[in-house]
């Protein structure tokens, strides 16, 4: 094998190594978010799911806190905006939104929303619904909304899970059709 050929193969190794490295680094957040969206959407998209109390058996998302009651809504804005609301809780609570690349692009907590929060979530670049009081733009069509309610004991978790039943994650059009 001549030296010139050898150099070509070395370049091929280097270029494919760099491309693979960069592709993996950029793909990891999206791939892991897609896995999370897939796991969390077993019960369907655009609806809240109250997670069971976090224990050693909780294996859906890495590093869960056993001190929180979590509710998750995997959203898909491709068919229009969603209305997302979080009922207030007596301890710390927050509503946070994650794009499909894992960015936490929005968060509101009980310091800012004493009586609960309600937002209209719209895909960036799409029209905002008329009259919607608080519109948040998602950088991606799919993502995850998460509510954390501080509830370190079983009793507090039960109470938080009860409160979580009042949360809303639903298509704005369907809510409008039902006159809500």
């Amino acid at each position, binding site marked *: 094998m001549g030296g010139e050929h050898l150099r070509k193969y070395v370049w091929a190794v280097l270029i494919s190594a760099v491309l693979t490295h960069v592709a993996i680094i950029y793909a990891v957040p999206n791939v892991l978010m897609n896995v999370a969206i897939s796991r969390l959407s077993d019960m369907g998209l655009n609806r809240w799911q109250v997670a069971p109390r976090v224990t050693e058996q909780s294996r859906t998302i890495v590093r869960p806190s056993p001190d929180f009651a979590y509710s998750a809504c995997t959203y898909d804005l491709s068919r229009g905006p969603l209305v997302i609301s979080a009922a207030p809780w007596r301890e710390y609570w927050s509503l946070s939104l994650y794009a499909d690349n894992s*960015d936490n692009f929005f968060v509101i907590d009980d310091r800012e929303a004493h009586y609960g929060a309600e937002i209209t979530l719209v895909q960036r670049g799409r029209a905002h619904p008329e009259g919607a009081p608080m519109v948040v733009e998602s950088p991606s069509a799919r993502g995850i909304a998460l509510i954390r309610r501080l509830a370190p004991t079983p009793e507090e978790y039960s109470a938080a899970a009860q409160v979580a039943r009042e949360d809303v994650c639903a298509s704005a059009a369907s809510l409008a059709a039902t006159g809500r």
Partner: protein
Amino acid sequence: MGRIFAWAAAILIGVVLGAASAWGALEIGRTNFAEQYGAWHFNHAAGSTAAGPYSRAVIARDGLLALSAREALYFTIFTDDQGRPLSESCVYEMTGRDLDARWWSVTLYADDSFLAMNNDHAHSVDASRISYSADGYWRTRISPVKGDAINWVSSRAARRGFSLTLRVYNPQRDFRPSADSLPQLTTLSCAGGA
């Protein structure tokens, strides 16, 4: 034919090298792309829309759905005061004062980033439940059994290579993490010289 095989082999070697280097970057990135305060590692870019690709990948792997620093700060310890991986065969004590924040907790995660597979119901201590000593400090034992500890985080079944994550929610505006202000971890003993 031989030339095609050589090209394919070169590309395959490159792909393997690229995958290995990406895995290595994520593995070392949990500490090397982070700020360090004493033993605690802190990645200010967690959850941030401004995070670089490496930070975003590391956080996605080790702390998917983390809140941005505006809402919560996450600090993690991976090694003891001698630089050794944290191990179930050792007994540790963590000491700290109340943090200048609304709420905080310390949680133990096994090397797979999930709670250790024990049923001790002692995966964490938090600001709402911890007992303080008369000197104003709280102390928690991190060990496989509670013994006479007042505050306890169970490391039973956490094996070797577990980590401790400090969550600081709604830090006050003047909250400044430092090696002195964050809790300190001390190794009390290790079975069999581990």
